[in-house]
């Protein structure tokens, strides 16, 4: 049966742990062995929206496993600009490749692509909805930083209202054991109630605060997010909160030694560059783990044994 990766909501705790183990096995492989895994396979990369890390890390992941990549990184120069439907684009591209990675501004686009495609489909972001490979790489980063995901104390900071990354990560972490959360945000960017209520049934401990310092003192991980200008209907509201949380070396002065700072990137002002050289900074290694995790995801969905 065809396998897809569309939403974190489709994955059980066991699926998540299996993906973490898969990432570990990819990391342990020699580059030569890795190059054989997807030799002869072609990945179709359909990016209807801009991306740096996600697209490049998928392409790098495919190339490192011996596969090849075709696709586009913006829809303007394709048949989409002539009014082609998503379903028709998928029916065409599936003739040329063995798997499809899609990023699309409409929510549910990847699900629809998976419904009509006969090759595996991976969601690389569908509007404000899901970005499951980001969540898996975040989990893999935590596993590598702490040797575990269970029992961690995680602060989610910044735009908790609009950030799909934060919503998916929260739902995924809620499936692990004893993970405790601090939500740190301005009042206007609080975690929506519908995101919290979707974890019903999980024993999740959540505390909300507006104090970043308090979260730093209490947590193992501070997961920073960019406050996204493009999500605000009113620019005045954006100006009010854009610099609400700014992490710099001075803020981290009294942080516990083991505290790690993560960020899905790109950052704007929320993490000062003077944090980069501290042992707390984990966001660039996090981007690196992204490629490893995506290697594992591609291998798994294409049925390769690792």
């Amino acid at each position, binding site marked *: 049966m065809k396998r897809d990766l569309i*939403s974190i*909501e489709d994955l059980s705790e066991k699926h998540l742990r299996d993906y973490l183990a898969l990432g570990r096995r990819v990391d342990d492989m020699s580059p030569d062995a890795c190059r054989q895994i997807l030799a002869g396979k072609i990945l179709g990369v359909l990016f209807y929206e801009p991306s740096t890390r996600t697209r490049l890390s998928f392409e790098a992941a495919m190339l490192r496993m011996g596969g090849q990549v075709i696709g586009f990184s913006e829809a303007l120069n394709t048949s989409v600009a002539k009014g082609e*439907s*998503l*379903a028709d684009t998928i029916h065409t591209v599936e003739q040329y490749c063995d798997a499809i990675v899609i990023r*699309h*501004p*409409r*929510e*549910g*686009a990847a*699900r*629809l692509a998976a419904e009509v495609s006969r090759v595996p489909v991976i969601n690389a972001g*569908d*509007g*404000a*909805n*899901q970005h499951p490979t980001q969540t898996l790489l975040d989990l893999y980063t935590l596993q590598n930083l702490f040797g575990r995901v269970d029992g961690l104390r995680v602060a989610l900071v910044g735009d908790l209202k609009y950030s799909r990354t934060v919503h998916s990560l929260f739902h995924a972490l809620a499936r692990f054991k004893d993970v405790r959360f601090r939500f740190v945000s301005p009042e206007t960017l609080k975690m929506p109630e*519908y995101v919290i*209520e*979707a974890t019903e049934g999980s024993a999740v401990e959540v505390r909300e605060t507006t104090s970043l310092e308090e979260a730093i003192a209490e947590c193992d991980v501070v997961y920073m997010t960019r406050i996204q200008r493009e999500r605000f209907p009113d620019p005045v509201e954006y100006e009010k909160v854009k610099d609400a949380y700014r992490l710099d070396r001075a803020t981290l002065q009294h942080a516990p030694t083991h505290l790690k700072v993560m960020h899905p990137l790109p950052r704007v002002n929320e993490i000062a560059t003077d944090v980069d050289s501290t042992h707390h900074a984990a966001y660039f290694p996090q981007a690196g783990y992204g490629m490893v995790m995506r290697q594992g995801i591609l291998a798994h969905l294409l049925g390769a044994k690792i």
Partner: protein
Amino acid sequence: MSPEQILLIPKIENGFVLDHIPAGSGVKILNLIRGQHELNDAVLSVGLHYTSRRLGRKDLIKIQCRELPQRFLQHLSLVVPGVTIKRVEKFAIAQKIVLEPPELVDNLLSCPNPGCITNHERGVTTCFHLVRREPMKFRCNHCERWFAMAELENRLKL
């Protein structure tokens, strides 16, 4: 039905009685009936705001027709779940069922989320899952948003 109510709304020989409609929801059902061309010629009797032991107040609708269209029943189970449907044959109740809210709503609704792909692609089939019974909420299979029934009532694909 009490003798007083029988006086208010006459017995029917053949057809269906929709009973235990929460007061105020009878009008919603009339709108659903109006959207079903199979029921265009059906004779309707409508009673609003009756006293009810179970509901306090209730509405009641009698429809004189041979069958209720499947799509009407699906819409009804969504918009006013809990309604009792009695099939009447020769003035007697031949069958009685209580409509439960559907677990799966297959292509009966359009998604209220303007950013959902199903509102932008031609010929897409929508699907919603019941994720909570009290208060009733459904989740769009594509954009994954949760919606209360009040948000979906005007999204019926009639």
